[in-house]
């Protein structure tokens, strides 16, 4: 493959791995703080999205593929996943409707 020539070294991947471990430790530490569930959810999801980006970009080599691959595959999937949230208001409503 044409892009193989500029793949990073093993040392670089170890750095990505350490970054992922550090983010995980931050997440675990957060679980023991007294943050409200909402704030915790947003923070944990935010950190997980950063970890996902690192895994997809470097471990899964997305950064070294053509941009057309990224543009074709990722935005549509992210939008589809985000659209699942359309069901969510219902779960709060059920809570209100319960006798």
């Amino acid at each position, binding site marked *: 493959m044409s892009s193989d020539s500029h*793949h990073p070294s093993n040392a670089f991947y170890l750095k990505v791995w350490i970054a992922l471990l550090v983010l995980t430790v931050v997440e675990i530490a957060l679980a023991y703080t007294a943050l409200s569930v909402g704030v915790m*959810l947003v923070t944990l999801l935010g950190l997980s999205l950063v970890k996902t980006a690192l895994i997809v970009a470097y471990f899964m080599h997305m950064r070294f593929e053509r941009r057309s691959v990224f543009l074709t595959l990722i935005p549509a999937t992210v939008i589809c996943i985000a659209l699942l949230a359309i069901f969510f208001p219902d779960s709060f409503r059920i809570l209100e409707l319960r006798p």
Partner: protein
Amino acid sequence: MSNGSSGVWAGGQSPFAMNSKKLGMWLFLLSDALTFSAFLFAYSYVRVANENWPRPFDAHSIVLSSIMTLFLLSSSVTMVFAVNNSAAGNRKRAVQWLGATMLGGLAFIVLHSYEWAGLIAKGVTPFDNPWGVPLFGASFFSLTGLHMTHVTLGVIYLGVIAWGYGRSKYTAVDVEVSGLYWHFVDLVWMFIFPMVYLLSNQH
């Protein structure tokens, strides 16, 4: 590269410049991402819709699931080493790193089974649990069960690839494609771990 008919988007000439097995795996992973998202949304939905959602994950569970996360993350980096070695043509080293990746996966399976066994001993099943809200067991086991299935199939998949690659039946591309699958399984756990375990921490 971008003038008229020879552009990336002009079609007819491999716009992705990607091996078709690799593109096929990416497409499968995207559909799998949607499946896992649906399960995660379902778990969160029933959690919000039920006031007394159980929080059975004590410090023991959190330590256990953190070690599981460590094993999965580490197996991802050994997978990268396997892919790099296979791209460089070091067949033997690549197979060794694939073996290390499989060990990481196996450790995850063993620890997760142990954690499940602890929950089952407390009376948590897919249909019932001691704290009410039976949907907890249903959504927990279907989400983590789907993930466990992926890890188990992944270990078998890596075993087949290591066996075939060691015998020159498979190429470096096959190792890279199996790597994509393995990293995806790791990636999904990066959502299950905080959403299911960390958010239900007892403290």
